[in-house]
């Protein structure tokens, strides 16, 4: 399973963080979300499990003053309980939730950024945010 990792660095630094990461570590992460907050910039990326280790132990993080946090969250869909009503779909900012060909709910975990919007919107509580 691919792991999601949050990279955070202070505002002053700026610069093309992702491009530098690719260049210096040779890793090719998927960019899931990029946020500019008051505290600095945040990138949510996904990597293979062993790549997370490569990044964690690389000198890149220290040199650039980047903080790495592995996201230990999952979004769980209880298939037994889900009625495929679709109430959650239009709230998802990344299109991780949609109805399939047969009108059953499809959750594409890879695209989920754990914003949590869908969880309380599910009328039968079939979606739960889990930690691992």
């Amino acid at each position, binding site marked *: 399973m691919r792991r999601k990792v949050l990279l955070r660095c202070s505002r002053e630094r700026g610069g093309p963080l992702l491009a530098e990461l690719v260049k210096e570590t040779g890793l090719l992460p998927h960019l899931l979300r990029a946020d500019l907050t008051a505290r600095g910039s945040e990138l949510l990326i996904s990597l293979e499990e062993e790549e997370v280790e490569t990044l964690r132990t690389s000198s890149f993080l220290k040199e650039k003053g980047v903080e790495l946090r592995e996201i230990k969250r999952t979004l769980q869909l209880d298939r037994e309980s889900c*009625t*495929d*009503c679709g109430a959650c779909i*239009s*709230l998802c900012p990344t299109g991780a939730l949609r*109805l399939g060909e047969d009108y059953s709910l499809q959750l594409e975990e890879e695209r989920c950024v754990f914003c949590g919007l869908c969880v*309380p919107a599910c*009328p039968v*509580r079939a979606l739960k945010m889990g930690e691992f």
Partner: protein
Amino acid sequence: MKTVAEINEKIRRGEAVVVTAEEMVEIVKEKGAAAAAREVDVVTTGTFGAMCSSGAFLNFGHADPPIKLGGGEIYLNDVPAYAGLAAVDTYIGSTSISRTRGMEYGGGHVIEDLVRGKEVELRGRGYGTDCYPRKEIETTITIHDLNQAILYCPRTAYQRYNAATNSRDETLYTYMGTLLPEYGNVTFSGAGVLGPLGRDPGYRTIGVGTRIFLGGAQGYIAWEGTQHYPGKGLGTIAVVGDLKRMDARYLRGCTIHRYGTSLYVGLGIPIPILDEEVARTAGTDETQLRTNLLDYGVPRRERPVVREVTYAELRSGRIVVGKKEVPVSPLSSFRMAREIAWTLKRWIEKGEFLLSEPVERLPADRVFRPMKQVAPVPLVREVMTRQVVTVGPECSIAEAARILAEKGFDHLPVVDEHRRLVGIITSWDIATSVGTGKTRVSEIMTRKVVTAREDEPVDSVARSLELHSISGVPVLNERGEVTGVLTSDDLSKLVGRRR
């Protein structure tokens, strides 16, 4: 021309041709309504959506010594049930909410738990009479302990329903689900092509006494539904059935986020294809099923229509609102609607389900009237304070501070040269700006302002003040110009007047 009796004869012989509404659409498209009418005997439909006007009548039997709960209080798993019937009868409605768990658990959940055979705690109080001396009861029951458990829903199966969106700059939590700000999403309910009443909009074959699929068992149409409004294509039905025979797969308690609890009810109606006309309506496709997309950002009874939409567009998952394409959520499950139509089809094919002729037609001329209100709710423009002091964004902070202090205001709207609102500045903003070196109002003002519209009823503004814990809001006209302020003071004066 066929009769229901002839179709039933075919069902008994195992010869009836039964198709779902989805299949019927294809048949009519391919062969035309006349041929479809000759070929097909029954079209099955289905819908699975939250139906707030639903609940169940329960009879507990008598305790020893007996208690009269009627006129007292009844709680099932802490959810209040109706105590206005005879001694041990009650009605548990889907929207009644738990006194301890709030919206997480309500009457709809109690019904689902009963159907699942779970134990439900019954607590009740009576006032004590000569024949019912007992005053309190506390016990657990299951559906098997009840003498009768009758699902009765006064309004279900809306023929069609509007779709919803939200023009405001804040998220709304409605019975149409969570509506994101600035037309961020669209929600709709109804099973479209599978929706029962829409397949026979003239109610030629559907009426009082029609046998239906209800909650996984056979049930009946009891009456026209409340708010039945055929003239607008908004027909509804009241349905009844034996809860003891039902299946929790088709009856699910639910919580609509920050709105309340309800019950998802699975319901399907068989349409006997008596003639070409019935075949034609039963085969109407979703591009011809229209409804209005309404703006729930306007908290009035008549919400403005944003645009007209077809079910085909809604079903596609994305829809254009204004200039952008936004995601759509159905609120009722199409997959479950399909499953219900297929189940009903199988029942009929196997001869387990016979059609019934309505004993009474549904009224075709009923209208849905609004509530009679003795005192209409005043509009914002009728109670707002019109003398409103504003400043421009270039005004100095010192000047703004002077105005606030002089007039004893808490906040000042900041407007541009056209009197259009660009922000608001409060004494708090000014206090925290001290020593920051900032000098202009525009540098410290809050840009995201809670506002009211002149033509809004004051009740919705009162709710907004409460939600945001603020004491007043600038009032805008339809051009976005500031024309007044509405404060909690204005509102409390009003309460005095209305008493």
